[in-house]
C-alpha cells in the first residue's frame, strides 16, 4: 500500500529531514512512527500525502508512483487518504455535521450520499447526538472524533495520523486509539506518528523508529523503545 525506496527529503536551507529511508507498509497494517521531534516522522506523512515531494528515491502510494503523478491527479490521490492532526483542523464556524459533510461536498459527492453517510459516520465515532454542536462546544477528545469522522467519511484506503493524542489526556487518548483500531480492522491502513509511549506499548503493533532522518528500527510487534 505504501512503499518507500531509499527516499530522501532535504528542505530549503539544507535541513535534512529524511535520508535514504526504505520501508514497505502493507494494506491493513497499523504502523506507529516514533522518534524525537525533528526526526522525520511528519515529513514521512507529508510525503505520503504528497504535500511534499521526495528529492531522491521512489515512493509508491496506493499503486501510484508519486514522482510521476501529475499535480492535477493529486486531489484524486488524496481522496484515498484521510488525515488527522494534533490540532484537529476543524472549521470553527461550521457545526459537527457540516464539518464532516464539507469533506464530501467539496469532492462533489451528491447530496443524497452526504445525507446517508454523515449520520452513519457520526454514529460510528459516537457523536450522533452532538451533530448540531459547534467544535468549540466540544471537548478535545470529541473534537478529535469529529476530525476522524471527517477523515474517514469517504472510506479512504489509508489513514494518516500526526500525533492525534498529543493534546489529550490518557483516558481520552485510549478512546481515540480504540476508534482508530476499529477503523484499522475495517481494512484501512493506519500510519500514526506519536510520542505517546504508553499507547505504543499497549497496542503492540508495528513500530518504525526514526532518528535524524534515518530509520533506526522497524519491528513487527514493537514497543516505544
Amino acid at each position: 500500500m505504501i512503499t518507500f525506496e531509499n527516499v530522501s527529503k532535504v528542505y530549503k536551507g539544507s535541513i535534512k529531514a529524511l535520508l535514504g529511508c526504505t520501508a514497505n507498509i502493507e494494506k491493513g497494517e497499523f504502523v506507529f512512527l516514533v522518534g524525537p521531534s525533528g526526526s522525520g516522522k511528519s515529513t514521512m506523512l507529508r510525503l505520503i500525502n504528497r504535500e511534499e515531494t521526495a528529492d531522491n528515491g521512489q515512493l509508491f502510494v496506493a499503486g501510484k508512483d508519486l514522482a510521476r503523478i501529475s499535480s492535477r491527479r493529486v486531489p484524486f490521490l488524496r481522496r484515498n487518504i484521510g488525515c488527522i492532526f494534533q490540532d484537529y483542523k476543524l472549521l470553527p464556524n461550521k457545526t459537527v455535521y457540516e464539518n464532516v459533510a464539507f469533506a464530501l461536498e467539496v469532492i462533489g459527492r451528491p447530496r443524497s450520499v452526504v445525507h446517508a453517510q454523515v449520520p452513519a459516520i457520526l454514529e460510528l465515532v459516537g457523536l450522533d447526538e452532538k451533530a448540531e454542536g459547534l467544535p468549540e462546544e466540544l471537548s478535545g477528545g470529541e473534537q478529535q472524533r469529529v476530525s476522524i469522522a471527517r477523515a474517514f467519511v469517504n472510506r479512504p484506503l489509508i489513514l494518516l495520523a500526526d500525533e492525534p493524542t498529543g493534546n489529550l489526556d490518557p483516558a481520552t487518548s485510549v478512546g481515540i486509539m480504540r476508534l482508530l483500531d476499529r477503523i484499522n480492522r475495517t481494512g484501512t491502513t493506519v500510519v500514526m506518528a506519536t510520542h505517546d509511549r504508553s499507547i505504543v506499548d499497549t497496542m503492540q503493533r508495528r513500530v518504525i523508529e526514526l532518528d535524524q532522518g534515518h530509520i533506526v528500527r522497524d519491528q513487527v510487534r514493537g514497543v516505544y523503545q
Partner: protein
Amino acid sequence: MALKLDYVVRETSTNMRRNVTLTIAAIVTMAVSLGLFGSAMLIRAGVDSLSSRWKEGVEVIVFVDRKITPEQNEALKQKLEDHPEIANSRFMDDDASREEYERIFDDNQAMLDRIKENPELLPNSYRITPATGETQAILSLSEQLGKEPGVLRATSALDGVRRVQHISSAAQTGILVVAVGLLLAAMLLILNAIRMAMFARRREIEVMKLVGATNWFIRVPFMMEGMIQGIVGSALAVSGIVFLNRYMQSLSKDQNTILTGFAASGSEVMVVMISVVVLGIVIGAVGSGWALSRFLKV
C-alpha cells in the same frame, strides 16, 4: 465532477460580504476606468462622424485687407477666377458683408453696435467653392490664398473641424492613459480582494486540499467573485456611457454649430458598450486568476 450552483453562489456571496469595502473599492475603480475608456471610444466615434459631415460643401473665405490697392484687388480677382482648383468665387462687398453680419449676430446688440460705430472693422471677402472635396487639398488651397498680397486671412470650416480633431485626439490620448492606469488599479484591487477572501478562508482551503477537492472546485467561487466585480463595474460604466451619449446627441442636434453631427451611431454605441463589458469581465477574471495562481499552490 459536478460543481454545484448553490455551493458556488453561497461561497461567492460570503466572500464578497466579508470584504465589503474592498469589493466596493474594486467595483468603483473598475466603473470609473471603464467609463473613461468607453467615453474615449465614444468621443472618437463622434469626431469621426463630425469630420465626415464637414467634408461636403465646404467654402473657403478669403478676407480682403482694407488697405489693398486696386491693382492688387484686380490681380487677386483674376487669380481666383483662373485658379484650377476653384470652381466658383463670389465677392462680398461692404453691403453684402454687413447684411450677413447682421443676420449672424441678430441677437447680439453689442456686436451689432460695434460694427455700426466702426464699419471699417468688417472686411470684404471672396467666397470660394473649391473644385475638390478633398480635405487636404482644401486646407492647402486656403493656406496658399492666405499668402496672396492684400489678403488678411483665408479660412474654411475645415480649420474648425481640424481644431476639434486636434483637441479631441489630445483629449482621447489623455483619457486613455488615465483609463489604462485606472484599469490596472482595478485589477490590483480585485487581486487584493481575492487575496483577502482567500486569507479569510485559508483554513477551509487547507481542509479542502486535504480531503482532495480539485483546484477548480476551490477556485471557482473566487473567480466568480472577480467576475462579478468586473460585471457590476462595467454595468455602472455602461450607464455612464449612456448619459454621455445622450449629451452628445443633444449637442449634435443644435443646428449650425461646430458640433452639429457630433454623435456616434447606434451601432457604434453598442460596440462601445459591449467592449466595456467584455473588458470588465476579462479584467475581473485575470485579476482573480492571478491571485489564485499565486496563492493556491498544490
